[in-house]
């Protein structure tokens, strides 16, 4: 009797002790990541895995300030063309190799020179590196580049073990070796990615899990169902329309952060013959379309007010937002007047949209609103792959597309609005805007940059090659046993300080 009671009690005690720290954290992702190689990968969701797998040179705070991570301090030379970084001396990669300046040099070299590297355009301004000593490195630029620190806070700054990259080359992604809080254990495509706690992590005391399992669950309803059933501890990208019901559920928590990106309508102004429409040729018609849209109502109807209406590439909460160009209220009369001025009353335009139901709803709302101003919208749904191709090739009039956003404002605007921009599918080209945007990216002074962006905004509000509609809000739903989670506007899940019972 005695012994059994004691053993039962002990067992209960042990069980409860193990409940204080969940050994394995299970996270539901909205998609399956692609290749797990920071230099080759292209998906947003892959970055969520990297947040636990690969540490970067610098990190961001929720307020988007750049703070030290693998680099402890950095300094710009007077001419802004040399960046000197001091590195941590207590970091090892998952394979035991030491992290030092040579490793940083090797990483930057790979990002720049690996033929398959997707990071090339992000580190384009780097001409070379110079290892000063074991934990100091100089990075030389071809021209002053204000965006480099923000790039180092993302995939371009993720440090991979040089030994592993050399051994595995392009197949690094099958068994990545980095320096983050967790190391790679296994991956079954479309099923799970399992990472295990790295004992020698330099901030190991902030990590409260023995392992993290990422489970890609594409269907939103099923992802939430998994959370409710207790099969995962947290999920990302909860649909806006599920927020109310999750808030009403006592066993679940919600965390939100307005994203860095935007969703809008990209208009073909100069990309092939399809641009020869009243909309493509006359900025007044574009302004009219923008005025016909009630962005707040759109946010309300499709997203229950959870997202944020927008009219610029940065959300109104961003420090880069130009307050002198606020979100216009809907004005059908003014829209009709503009159309009359342009001689384009009762026009028909074709809007292409992906087959995603939410995107479809957004365009249907715009369609209904624009109809009242005399603009008839024909919706053409295309599979995403086809949509991108036709957008690139200019085979569209208006395309509903967005951008997930970058920490540095340049990342949200330069490649879309400059004449030679890499993703400028509207082929908008205005040398004045080019000058302002180039000026903004080379100065490290925030005031100067903001002034340049504001001046550019004044021109772009007139020309309007992109009609911005809204900014997505990243929404996470968590089991109420999870604590310590901080929402970041870049949508990443950082597990430092997070624990679950």
């Amino acid at each position, binding site marked *: 009797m005695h012994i059994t009671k004691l053993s039962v009690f002990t067992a209960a005690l042990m069980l409860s002790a193990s409940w204080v720290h969940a050994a394995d954290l299970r996270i539901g992702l909205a998609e399956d990541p692609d290749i797990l190689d920071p230099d080759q990968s292209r998906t947003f969701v892959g970055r969520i895995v990297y947040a636990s797998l690969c540490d970067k040179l610098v990190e961001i705070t929720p307020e988007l300030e750049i703070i030290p991570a693998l680099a402890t301090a950095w300094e710009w030379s007077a001419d802004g063309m040399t960046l000197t970084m001091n590195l941590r001396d207590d970091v090892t990669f998952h394979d035991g190799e030491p992290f030092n300046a040579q490793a940083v040099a090797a990483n930057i070299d790979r990002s720049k020179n690996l033929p398959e590297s997707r990071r090339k355009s992000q580190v384009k301004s780097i001409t070379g590196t110079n290892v000063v000593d074991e934990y100091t490195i100089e990075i030389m630029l071809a021209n002053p580049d204000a965006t480099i620190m923000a790039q180092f806070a993302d995939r371009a700054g993720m440090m991979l073990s040089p030994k592993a990259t050399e051994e595995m080359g392009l197949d690094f992604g099958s068994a990545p070796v980095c320096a983050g809080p967790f190391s790679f254990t296994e991956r079954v495509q479309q099923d799970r990615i399992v990472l295990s706690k790295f004992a020698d992590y330099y901030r190991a005391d902030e990590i409260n899990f023995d392992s993290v399992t990422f489970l890609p669950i594409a269907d939103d*309803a099923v992802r939430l169902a998994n959370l409710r059933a207790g099969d995962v501890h947290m999920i990302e990208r909860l649909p806006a329309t599920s927020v109310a019901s999750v808030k009403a559920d006592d066993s679940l928590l919600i965390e939100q952060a307005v994203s860095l990106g935007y969703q809008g309508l990209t208009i073909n102004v100069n990309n092939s013959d399809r641009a020869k429409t009243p909309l493509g040729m006359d900025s007044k018609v574009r302004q009219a379309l923008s005025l016909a849209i009630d962005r707040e*109502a759109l946010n309300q*109807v499709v997203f229950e007010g959870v997202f944020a209406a927008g009219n610029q590439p940065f959300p109104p909460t961003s420090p880069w937002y130009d307050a002198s160009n606020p979100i216009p209220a809907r004005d059908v009369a003014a829209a009709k007047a503009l159309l009359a001025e342009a001689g384009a009353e009762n026009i028909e335009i074709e809007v292409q949209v992906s087959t995603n139901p939410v995107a479809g709803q957004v365009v249907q709302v715009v369609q209904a609103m624009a109809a009242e101003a005399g603009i008839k919208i024909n919706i053409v*749904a295309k599979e995403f792959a086809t949509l991108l191709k036709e957008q690139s090739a200019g085979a569209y009039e208006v395309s509903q597309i967005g951008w997930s956003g970058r920490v540095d404002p340049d990342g949200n605007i330069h490649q879309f609005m400059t004449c030679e921009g890499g993703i400028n599918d509207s082929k908008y080209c205005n040398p004045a805007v080019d000058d302002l945007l180039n000026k903004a990216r080379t100065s490290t002074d925030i005031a100067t940059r903001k002034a340049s962006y504001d001046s550019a905004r004044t021109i772009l509000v007139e020309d309007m090659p992109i009609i911005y509609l809204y900014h997505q809000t990243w929404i996470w739903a968590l089991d109420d046993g999870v604590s310590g989670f901080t929402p970041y506007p870049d949508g990443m899940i950082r597990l430092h300080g997070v624990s679950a019972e």
Partner: protein
Amino acid sequence: MSVIDEIQADVLPPRRNRIWAKLRNNTAALFGALIVAFFVIIAVAAPILPIPGPAETDWGAVRKAPSTAHWMGTDELGRDLLSRMIWGAQASLLAGVVSVAIALSIGIPLGVLAGYCRGWTDAVISRVTEALLAAPFLILAIALAAFLGPSLRNAMIAIGLSAVPIFIRLARGQTMQVLTEDYVESAHAIGLSHRAIIGRYVLPNIVPPLLVQATLTIATAIIAEASLSFLGLGQQPPSPSWGSMLNTAKAFLEQAPWLAMWPGIAIFFVVLGFNLLGDGLRDALDPRNI
């Protein structure tokens, strides 16, 4: 009329009437026919019924539960569900019937050709049919729909083309069976042309099993359209079809379960109806029971 004919006429009613009588006695088949007729009627009558337009949005009435104003509730953009369900019946039924019509119009000629000509024609057609049958039906439909672009029309073409091999195989098998009959051999013997033999003997005799298969394939096609729409490849907004309504509804299963209920129930009944009808036809036309 000879004496024998007179006696036969008294004892056995004509074949067509016997089939009709069997069908009438089969309650399940009648039930199925009723269901199908109901949906066809409302689909055809959609434009003249006193319902609001299926694309009329109303920001103030988003996702409202069924009420006196909206008998089936409203959808995610405030549109009346009853109206969308009725118009959606058009799309879904069309998807079923047109797909099968496409499959029949390509499948029967090829199947009969293969069964009649044998030799190399048969070999080639059979190999191609086997190749198409080996690829999974839905994958084929998805790939074709992706190729053609997401729309109801393309979904119908995709499903129709994917169903062609089924009818080729059936038509071929039935043709070969008919050709072994004595009366066909006699027809050959008296010198009837190929066209006459096919027209007079083959086609009328292969119609029954093909009709059964067609009815059953309509059921499969309606589900296939729903599946394609579920993947975003079928009817595109704002035009309704039950499948695409289900696709948007799955995001609101908790907040507005009626959005998923109605299309799901409708698809279930229509498909059940066609299946019952097809089964009834099969039983009625079964030569063993005549």
